[in-house]
């Protein structure tokens, strides 16, 4: 018993089977995390190796190079880049997408074991660090405080950060901009010298006084007691009463030579929100956590925490990545619902019966819900890609059901009982339904095999589409006939409403049939005219193709901008703050309502701040985090805002560099297009010069808003140059002498002061007034082993130097990168082309190479991948069709209609001024399946009519007329399913709009072309086939006549032989 027969006979079983799928699907759906993009696996491993005391070039030669040479042989490596800085080498390994990062980490570790013996002595063991998207903060909170400001860190740490960190899924919670308490002991150098007490002694004494020491146990009578010495300070004031030495027989107390300031760290990062100082709390999630759920949990917790805080502290959300995700997903869900509505409307208009519409409509949720099971099982999430996939699928899943329903209806109208009609009607079309599903699988299955960045995006889509297609076919062959048997019946009398409502539609459709028949009639009789017009159209639109602008991925307006403003090195904090506050007030005034919050951090961050240490920081660096209201609530686009901001920054001559990033710099996707040029070469001077020339010419172009050179400025700094001979004469070595300098300026960490379970640093150093000039450095006293004091200026000299920059390398060569951020509306290909023109004009010395990289490289990679994919898909589709038709000619005709789809895509993109991106190309690839389906429907019916004995031309015309409605129906369901996508204006719409536009454009043109071109082409090939067969017959006849006449002769010859 076949599938459809048993399902018609056992409706309860069929219904319940599908209900089970729905049940599973809904369960999976409830468990699915929501995210913006599919989980992009980490593909980067960093190796940190420190070698203290080595300069950048030492590091490069002794550490980075050997590491690179060995690590280069790790499998699946795409690029190896490195930064060699003073004391540290960072090698970054970028792998191809799609490999297990844990395996790769093990490989890297093995290689490191091999190389570590070859590294110089004193090099620390290399540390492996996996970078992942999880490190991007999911939530940033701003804290405003007034009276509580000095104690803000402790208040926040105890009452906010710790409770938040306990929430499930929250990784680290860091506090920035609230300085931590520190007990500073400021020494007076003059008094120190007078009493002959160096900082080291003070620091050692403080450390040894602040101790609790257990003294063991002892017994008294029957009891055992513990013996302890408790010496830890109970109050910081006790420190000042320590005796740090004697002078002329009298005790010298610490308070005699120093003062204590119990306050905050000297150098700390400050944070400002909307111009007011406060702090920031940064929440990062644990790897694999659900951003939306976590940030919701955190936000739910905030009001409770707020109650426990002093009344002047106010916590606000600055950046909430989940907000954008939720808005985007909501917009997309809305478009899906519209798509569903449109599709049902089309079905209703064409079939004119509500029962039929219900039968068709019900297959949609069943098939779509099934894909959630896959997502759940494969650990996927609800994201732009999976939702776009649903939107695409809605128009396609109904096709099979429509074919089945149509044929069943025909049977019923012929007089079969609905039950028999359902079984036999389905039986007749089952093969072609399966074949058309196979063509769709031939399109979508290869998507699951794409590698690279595009692969990450398409794998999920490919699998989802395959599963949806298979489930929809199964539903069309079981559920649909079952429902047809139950719900359809011969309409012996139409209702009044139906007559009033549907008669005009029916008439219009009939007129359309007649009109189309006439056109076809003309076309098949003017084949060559039609074909040349088609050819011209194709060539014409292909000629327009170069005008198409391309980019990798459409940028996403998530309402966030991050900016790094760099003042010249060595700029004081006060100066940086001034610039920052000017910029803030400027932006707050201009964007007014649109601006939600403008936050910036400035200054040197604490070493143990996990978030801040990931990014550069310093007194000259200002980090802005600006959030705007969602895209749907403001008229001005984010790209434009960024461009305006860049113009503002240019007005400040004191700003050395700036980097304004759209989207808050959250990973490689969705940012503004940036053309990246890499200059490879060993010589610093030459490469610097080339980079500068390139950057200057790019800056001069009005379509570039910002150019960054990766090589940092040569840093001015003071160095103490010790004379080793003099050091030796005093019995000193360099390290000892250098420590003396460090302890006086940076401070010696004497001990920790403990209070209420928290530890605070106690630092001993020169008082700030004595740390302001070069003389102060020169006058530092260094004590020799014999206790003699020597001044620094006697041991060496203090000189001003420029530190060599960080040495960057890529693929084992020195490199400088020049990034050009393009203005809104300018696309990547344009920028790259312009850059290449500049490069062509430049004189490039031998040994130096300039090449384009970055997102353009990614784009090229994925274009190539998608191109190969397109060819594989076309071949697979051809194979499926050729097997179905058992012919090579007809599939060829159909495949030739695919280029028209691409014409349509190009025209639609050009007309709507949309760029060619991964999303629009995805649309193009999907088109192959749909266009081919239309062709199959036409050719299949034409062949059927010819088998029934019609002539070629008659068969083509009749088939065209009778298949017009099914073709229009499948096309319209798909097009209207995509319309909401193409016109949606909500948050995140710019990401999927290209997809909608390209499918609509491609499908419209290709359907019109298919309807005219396929019958014409069929006549050409069919005519040729008939002529060929006639010729063959004629030949055979001539041959047999000849044989009849010359039988004897021919037989003789063969006998002779």
């Amino acid at each position, binding site marked *: 018993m076949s599938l459809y027969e048993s399902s018609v006979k056992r409706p309860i079983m069929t219904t319940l089977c599908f209900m089970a799928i729905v049940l599973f699907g809904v369960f999976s759906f409830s468990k699915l995390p929501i995210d913006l993009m599919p989980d992009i696996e980490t593909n980067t491993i960093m190796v940190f190796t420190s070698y203290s005391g080595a300069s950048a070039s030492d590091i490069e030669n002794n550490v980075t190079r050997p590491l690179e040479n060995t690590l280069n042989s790790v499998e699946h490596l795409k690029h190896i880049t490195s930064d060699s800085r003073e004391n540290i080498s960072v090698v970054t390994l970028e792998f191809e997408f799609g490999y297990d990062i844990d395996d790769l980490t093990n490989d890297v570790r093995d290689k490191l074991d091999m190389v570590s013996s070859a590294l110089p002595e004193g090099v620390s063991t290399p540390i492996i660090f996996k970078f992942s998207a999880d490190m991007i903060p999911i939530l940033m909170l701003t804290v405003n405080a007034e009276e509580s400001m000095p104690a803000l860190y402790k208040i926040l740490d105890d009452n906010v950060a710790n409770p938040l960190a306990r929430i499930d899924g929250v990784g680290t919670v860091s506090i920035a901009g609230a300085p931590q308490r520190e007990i500073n002991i400021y020494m007076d150098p003059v008094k120190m010298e007078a009493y002959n007490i160096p900082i080291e002694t003070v620091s050692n004494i403080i450390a040894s006084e602040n101790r609790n020491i257990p003294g063991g146990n002892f017994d008294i009578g029957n009891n055992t007691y513990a013996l302890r010495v408790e010496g830890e300070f109970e109050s910081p004031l006790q420190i000042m009463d320590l005796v740090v030495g004697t002078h002329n027989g009298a005790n010298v107390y610490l308070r005699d030579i120093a003062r204590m300031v119990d306050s905050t760290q000297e150098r700390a990062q400050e944070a400002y929100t909307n111009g007011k100082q406060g702090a920031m709390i940064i929440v990062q999630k644990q790897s694999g956590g659900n951003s939306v759920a976590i940030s919701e949990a955190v936000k739910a917790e905030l009001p409770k925490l707020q109650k426990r805080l002093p009344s002047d502290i106010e916590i606000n959300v600055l950046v909430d990545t989940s907000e954008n995700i939720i808005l985007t997903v909501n917009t997309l869900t809305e478009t899906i619902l519209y798509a569903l509505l449109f599709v049902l409307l089309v079905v209703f208009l064409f079939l004119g019966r509500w029962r039929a519409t219900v039968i068709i409509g019900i297959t949609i949720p069943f098939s779509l819900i099934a894909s959630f099971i896959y997502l759940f099982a494969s650990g996927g999430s609800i994201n732009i890609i999976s939702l776009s996939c649903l939107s695409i699928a809605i128009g396609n899943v109904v096709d099979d059901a429509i074919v089945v329903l149509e044929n069943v209806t025909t049977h019923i109208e*012929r*007089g*079969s*009982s609905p039950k028999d009609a359902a079984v036999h009607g389905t039986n007749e079309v089952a093969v072609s339904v399966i074949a058309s599903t196979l063509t769709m699988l031939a399109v979508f299955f290869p998507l699951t095999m794409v590698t690279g960045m595009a692969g990450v995006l398409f794998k999920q889509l490919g699998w989802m589409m395959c599963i949806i297609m298979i489930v929809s076919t199964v539903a069309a062959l079981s559920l649909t006939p079952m429902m047809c048997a139950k719900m359809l019946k011969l309409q012996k009398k139409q209702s009044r409403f139906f007559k009033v409502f549907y008669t005009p539609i029916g008439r219009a459709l009939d007129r359309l049939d007649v009109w189309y028949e006439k056109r076809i009639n003309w076309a098949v009789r003017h084949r060559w005219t039609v074909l040349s017009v088609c050819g011209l159209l194709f060539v014409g639109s292909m000629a327009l193709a170069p005008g198409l602008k391309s980019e990798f991925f459409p940028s996403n307006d998530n309402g966030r901008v991050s900016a790094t403003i760099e003042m010249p090195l060595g700029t004081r904090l006060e100066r940086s703050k001034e610039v920052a506050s000017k910029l803030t007030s400027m932006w707050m005034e201009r964007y007014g309502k649109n601006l939600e919050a403008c936050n910036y951090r400035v200054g040197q961050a604490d070493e143990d701040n996990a978030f801040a240490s990931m990014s550069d920081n310093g007194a000259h660096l200002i980090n802005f985090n600006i959030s705007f209201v969602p895209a749907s609530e403001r008229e001005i686009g984010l790209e434009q805002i960024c461009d305006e901001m860049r113009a503002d920054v240019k007005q400040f001559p004191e700003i050395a560099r700036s980097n304004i990033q759209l989207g808050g710099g959250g990973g490689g996707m969705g940012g503004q297009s940036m053309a990246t040029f890499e200059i490879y070469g060993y010589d610093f001077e030459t490469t610097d010069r080339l980079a500068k020339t390139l950057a200057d010419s790019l800056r001069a172009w009005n379509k570039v808003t910002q150019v960054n050179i990766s090589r940092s400025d040569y840093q001015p700094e003071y160095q103490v140059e010790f004379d080793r001979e003099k050091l030796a004469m005093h019995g000193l070595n360099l390290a000892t002498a250098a420590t003396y300098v460090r302890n006086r300026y940076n401070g010696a960490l004497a001990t920790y002061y403990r209070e209420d379970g928290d530890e605070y640093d106690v630092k001993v150093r020169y008082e700030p007034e004595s740390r302001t000039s070069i003389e102060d450095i020169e006058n530092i006293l260094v004590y020799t082993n014999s206790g003699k004091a020597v001044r620094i200026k006697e041991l060496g000299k203090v000189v001003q130097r420029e530190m060599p920059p960080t040495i960057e390398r890529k693929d084992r060569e020195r490199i400088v990168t020049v990034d050009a951020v393009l203005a809104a509306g300018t696309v990547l290909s344009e920028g790259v082309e312009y850059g290449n023109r500049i490069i062509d004009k430049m004189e490039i010395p031998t040994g130096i190479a300039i090449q384009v990289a970055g997102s353009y490289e990614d784009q090229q990679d994925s274009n190539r991948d998608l191109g190969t994919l397109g060819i594989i898909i076309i071949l697979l589709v051809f194979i499926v069709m050729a097997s179905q038709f058992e012919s090579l000619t007809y599939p060829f005709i159909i495949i030739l209609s695919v280029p028209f789809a691409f014409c349509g895509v190009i025209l639609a993109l050009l007309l709507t001024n949309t760029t060619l991106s991964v999303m629009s190309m995805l649309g193009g690839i999907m088109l192959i399946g749909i266009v081919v389906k239309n062709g199959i429907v036409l050719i299949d019916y034409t062949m*059927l009519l010819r*088998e*029934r004995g019609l002539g070629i031309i008659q068969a083509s015309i009749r088939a065209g007329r009778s298949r017009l409605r099914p073709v229009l129906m499948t096309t319209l369901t798909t097009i209207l399913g995509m319309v909401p996508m193409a016109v949606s204006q909500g948050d995140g719409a710019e990401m999927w709009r290209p997809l909608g536009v390209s499918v609509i454009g491609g499908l419209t043109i290709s359907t019109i072309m298919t309807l005219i071109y396929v019958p014409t082409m069929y006549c050409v090939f069919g005519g040729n086939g008939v002529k060929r067969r006639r010729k063959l017959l004629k030949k055979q006849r001539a041959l047999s006549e000849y044989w009849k006449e010359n039988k004897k002769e021919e037989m003789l010859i063969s006998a002779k032989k």
Partner: protein
Amino acid sequence: MKSIFITFDQSNKDAVLALLDRYNCRGYTFFEQVQGRGSKTGDPHHGSHAWPSMNSAIITIVSDDKVSVLLEKLKELDEEFELLGLRAFVWNIEQCY
């Protein structure tokens, strides 16, 4: 005793069998799928790409008095759904055991 050979579109199976039951024709031989086409009208039933529908056939041996009423009813059935097609042919039975 006469034999009636009835060929009809698959979908008519239930109706034909019900008819036989109603007139107490217990014995019959049923051919689930047979191909064929009418001499004058009707679509061929070939189970092919061009003519996908199929026929079934029944041979039933009935007493002479049932023949006319059966034929009449079958004709009614055929006329109700002309597009499906149904034909009946009657033979004499020479011998049986």
